[in-house]
C-alpha cells in the first residue's frame, strides 16, 4: 500500500532535473517538448529522404539510387512525415497549450501521456530498422495496398507492428486530449469559450479514436494474409484486394483531417492576434470544424475512383467530397473577415499563417478538381496528386506548426526569437515550397506518374525546377532550428504578452509559463478576462 506521504501532491514547483525529468516525465510541458523535438527529428529524417527522391528526379535517367531503394524512400518519407513529424508535432503543441488554454494544472492522465510519447521512439526504431535488414525497407507505398505490400520481405512485420505502436500512441494521446478538455476546464471556461485550437484538437481527437483502430484492423488483416493464410485480400478465397483500400481509406481520409484540423485552430488564433480583432464567426468556426470531421467519414472512396465502383458510388463520393468545400470555405472567409479593417502587423507567426491561408487554399482547390470523377481518371496517381497533398500538408499543416511554434515560443521559453531571422526563414520556406511543389501540378497534368525514379525527357525542365525548390526549402529548415536554438539560448527576455493582440487564458500566465500551469486554478475573474478578450 502506498504511503500518503510519499505520493503527496506536487508541492514542489521546481522541475525535476537530469535525465529522469525526460524519461519519467509526467509534466505536460516536458512531454510537449519531447514530442516537438521528436517531431523535428523525424521531420529532418523524412526530409532527407525527400531530398534523395528529388536528387534522383533532378534529371531523367537513374543517377543515384536503384528503383527499389527509391520506392523505399517514397514509402518511408510518407510514413515518417505523417506519423513521425506532423502528428507528433500536433500532439506536442496540444500538450503544451491545451492545459494552459483551459486553465488546467496538467493533462488529465499524465502517466498515460508519457506512455503515448515513449511509444513513438520505439515505433520508429522498429520502422527505421527496416532500412538495415535484408530486402530493405517497405517499398510498396505508405498506403500498403495488397497484393504489392504482401510481397515485401523481412521488413513486412516490422512495418506492420511499427504502425500498431504508432496507433496505440495516437489513440492514448487522443483520449488524453478529450478527457483534459471535457474534464479539466477551469470554472467559467465553457466549451464555447475555449480557444479554437482546443476545439479543433478536440474534434481531431475524436477522429483519431475512431479511425486509428480501423487502421490497426486493416494492417492486422495484411499481417494474417501474409503469415497465417487468411484470404481477406485474396480474390481466389472470396476476399478482395479492393476491400483493403476501402478499409484503409476509411481511416485514411479522416487521417488527412487529423493532420489539418489543428492547423485550422492555430491559424484561428494567430490571425485575430495580429489583426488585433476578435475572430470573426467563432461559433461558425466550431460548427465548420465539426462538419468537416463528420464529412471526412463519408468521402473515403474518392481515393479509389479508378479501381472501379458503381456509378451511384462515384456520384455519392464525388458530391460528398465537394460538400467539404462548404465548411472549409466558411473557415477561409472567416479568416479573411477577421483581417478586414484590422490593424494588421506582419510578424513571423502572422506571415506563416497568411501563407497558410493562401497556399492551403490552393491545395483545397486542387482537391476539388480531384474530386471530379472524370477529371480524377486523368489526374489519378499523377504528380498532380503529389502537388495537391503536398500543398495541403507542407504550406498547410507544416507551416501552421511553424506558425504555432513562433507564436508560442516566447510564452514557453520566456525569450523572443530574432524577428529578422524568422522572416528570412519564412521567405526562404515560402519561395522554396512554391518552387518545389507548384511545377508538380504542370508535371501531373502533362502526364507524369507518381512514385517513379525515372521519367520521359519531356518532364525534365519542371522536375529540375522542383528539385531546386526542394533543396532550397529543405536546407532553409536548418535556419528554423537555428532561430529557435538562438532564441532559447540567448534571445531577448519576452514580456508576459509579447503580442499586444494575443488573448486567451494561455496569455494570462506569466512568461515563461510556470512549470505547473494553473496551480492554483485560475479564478473566475481571470478566466472571464481571458475569455472576454477573445470574443
Amino acid at each position, binding site marked *: *500500500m502506498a504511503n500518503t506521504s510519499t505520493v503527496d501532491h506536487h508541492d514542489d514547483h521546481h522541475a525535476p532535473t537530469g535525465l529522469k525529468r525526460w524519461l519519467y516525465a509526467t509534466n505536460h510541458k516536458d512531454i510537449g517538448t519531447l514530442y516537438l523535438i521528436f517531431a523535428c527529428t523525424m521531420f529532418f529524417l523524412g526530409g532527407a529522404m525527400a531530398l534523395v527522391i528529388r536528387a534522383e528526379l533532378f534529371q531523367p535517367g537513374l543517377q543515384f539510387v536503384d528503383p527499389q531503394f527509391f520506392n523505399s524512400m517514397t514509402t518511408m518519407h510518407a510514413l515518417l512525415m505523417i506519423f513521425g513529424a506532423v502528428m507528433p508535432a500536433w500532439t506536442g503543441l496540444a500538450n503544451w497549450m491545451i492545459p494552459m488554454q483551459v486553465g488546467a494544472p496538467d493533462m*488529465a492522465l499524465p502517466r498515460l501521456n508519457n506512455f503515448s510519447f515513449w511509444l513513438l521512439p520505439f515505433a520508429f526504431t522498429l520502422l527505421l530498422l527496416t532500412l538495415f535488414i535484408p530486402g530493405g525497407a517497405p517499398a510498396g507505398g505508405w498506403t500498403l495496398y495488397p497484393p504489392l505490400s504482401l510481397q515485401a520481405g523481412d521488413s513486412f512485420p516490422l512495418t506492420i*507492428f511499427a504502425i500498431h505502436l504508432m496507433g496505440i500512441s495516437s489513440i492514448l494521446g487522443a483520449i488524453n486530449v478529450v*478527457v483534459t478538455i471535457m474534464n479539466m476546464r*477551469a470554472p467559467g471556461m465553457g466549451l464555447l469559450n475555449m480557444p479554437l485550437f482546443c476545439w479543433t484538437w478536440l474534434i481531431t481527437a475524436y477522429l483519431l479514436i475512431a479511425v486509428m*483502430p*480501423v487502421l490497426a484492423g486493416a494492417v492486422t488483416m495484411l499481417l494474417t494474409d501474409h503469415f497465417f493464410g487468411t*484470404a481477406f485480400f485474396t480474390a481466389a478465397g472470396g476476399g478482395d484486394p479492393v*476491400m483493403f483500400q476501402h478499409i484503409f481509406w476509411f481511416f485514411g481520409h479522416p487521417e488527412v483531417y487529423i493532420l489539418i484540423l489543428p492547423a485550422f485552430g492555430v491559424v484561428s488564433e494567430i490571425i485575430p492576434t495580429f489583426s488585433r480583432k476578435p475572430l470573426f464567426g467563432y461559433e461558425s468556426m466550431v460548427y465548420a470544424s465539426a462538419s468537416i470531421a463528420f464529412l471526412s467519414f463519408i468521402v473515403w472512396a474518392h481515393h479509389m475512383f479508378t479501381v472501379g465502383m458503381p456509378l451511384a458510388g462515384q456520384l455519392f463520393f464525388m458530391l460528398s467530397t465537394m460538400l467539404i468545400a462548404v465548411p472549409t470555405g466558411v473557415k477561409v472567409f472567416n479568416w479573411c473577415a477577421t483581417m478586414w479593417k484590422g490593424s494588421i502587423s506582419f510578424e513571423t507567426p502572422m506571415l506563416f499563417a497568411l501563407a497558410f491561408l493562401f497556399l492551403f487554399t490552393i491545395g483545397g482547390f486542387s482537391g476539388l478538381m480531384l474530386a471530379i470523377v472524370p477529371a480524377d481518371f486523368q489526374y489519378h496517381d499523377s504528380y498532380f496528386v503529389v502537388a495537391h497533398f503536398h500543398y495541403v500538408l507542407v504550406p498547410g499543416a507544416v507551416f501552421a506548426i511553424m506558425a504555432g511554434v513562433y507564436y508560442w515560443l516566447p510564452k514557453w521559453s520566456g525569450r523572443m526569437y530574432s524577428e529578422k531571422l524568422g522572416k528570412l526563414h519564412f521567405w526562404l520556406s515560402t519561395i522554396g515550397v512554391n518552387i518545389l511543389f507548384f511545377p508538380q501540378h504542370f508535371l501531373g497534368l502533362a502526364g507524369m506518374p507518381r512514385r517513379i525514379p525515372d521519367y520521359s525527357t519531356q518532364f525534365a525542365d519542371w522536375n529540375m525546377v522542383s528539385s531546386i525548390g526542394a533543396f532550397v526549402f529543405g536546407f532553409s529548415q536548418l535556419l528554423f532550428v537555428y532561430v529557435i536554438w538562438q532564441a532559447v539560448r540567448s534571445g531577448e527576455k519576452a514580456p508576459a504578452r509579447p503580442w499586444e493582440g494575443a488573448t486567451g487564458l494561455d496569455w494570462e500566465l506569466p512568461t515563461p509559463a510556470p512549470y505547473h500551469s494553473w496551480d492554483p486554478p485560475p479564478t473566475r475573474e481571470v478566466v472571464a478576462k481571458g475569455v472576454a478578450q477573445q470574443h
Partner: protein
Amino acid sequence: MANAHADHADKYYVPHESAWPLFGSASLFVVMIGLCGWLNEWYGPTVFAIGLLMVVALFVGWFGVVIGENQAGIYNMQVDRSFRMGMLWFIFSEVMFFAAFFGALFYARQLSVPWAGGEGVKIFNNLLLWPEYTAAWPTNGPAALGPRDDGSFETIPAFGLPAINTAILLLSGVTITIAHHALKEGNRRVLNIFLAATFLLGFLFLGLQAEEYIHAYTELGLTLSTGIYGSTFFMLTGFHGMHVTLGAIMLVVIWLRTMNGHFTPQRHFAFEAVAWYWHFVDVVWLGLFVFVYWV
C-alpha cells in the same frame, strides 16, 4: 466545476515522475520485435515470451501504483471522472477495431463474393475467370481454399454451442449487474459471490470456445485459411475471445480486490470500468452470434 465535488483531496492529483510508461513502451517494443523475429524466422519465440513477461510486470507494477494511490485516498472526484472518460473512450476505440473486421465481413458477404460469382457488371468473372463458381455464403472462394483436398468445409450451426455461449455471456452480464448492485448496497458477500460467478462464466465461455475451435480444425475443415469464411470467422471470434480473456483476467483482479475489502459503495471506478468492458465484449458477441453464426 472541479472543486465543488472534491471529497478526499482538494486538488487534482498530478503524479510524480514514473518509470512505468517508459518501461511499458519498452516492453511493447520487445513483444513486437520478438514477434517480428519469430515470424521472419530469425529466432524463436524467446524474445516474444520475454516481452510478454515484461507486459505482465507492467500491468502489475503500474496498476499496483494506481491502486495504492487510490487506496491512499488522494484521487478526488475529478480524477475519478478522468478515469471514467478515459475508459469509455478506450472502449469506443475497441469498438472501432471490431468495426474494421465486421466491415470486412459485410464487404465480403455483400460485395466481393457476389462479384466473384459474376454479379451485375462483374459478369466476366463468371464467363471467363471462374465459370464453375456460384456465389453463396458461407464460402471459401472460387479456388475453394482450405485444408481439405476437395475444398469442402462445414460451418458451426448457430443453435448449438454458440447459442449456449450466448446464454453464458448474457447470464454473466446479469451476474455482474447483481454484483454491482450488491456493491452499491454494501452487501459484500453477494458482491464476492456474483463477481466470482461472472468470471467463472467467462472462463466457461472460453473453454467452450476452445472446444469449438478444436472441433472446427479437426473435424469440419474450417480453419483460418478456409477462404474468406474461415478468415472472418476466426479473426472475429478470435479477437473476441482475446478480449473475453482480458476481461476475465480483469474480473479476477477486481474480485481479489473486493475480497480484500477494496471499493466503497460510492467509489469503485475500477469495478465499473471492468463491468463496462465486460458488457462491451458481451455486445460484440451478440453481433458475432447474429452475423457470423446465425444469418
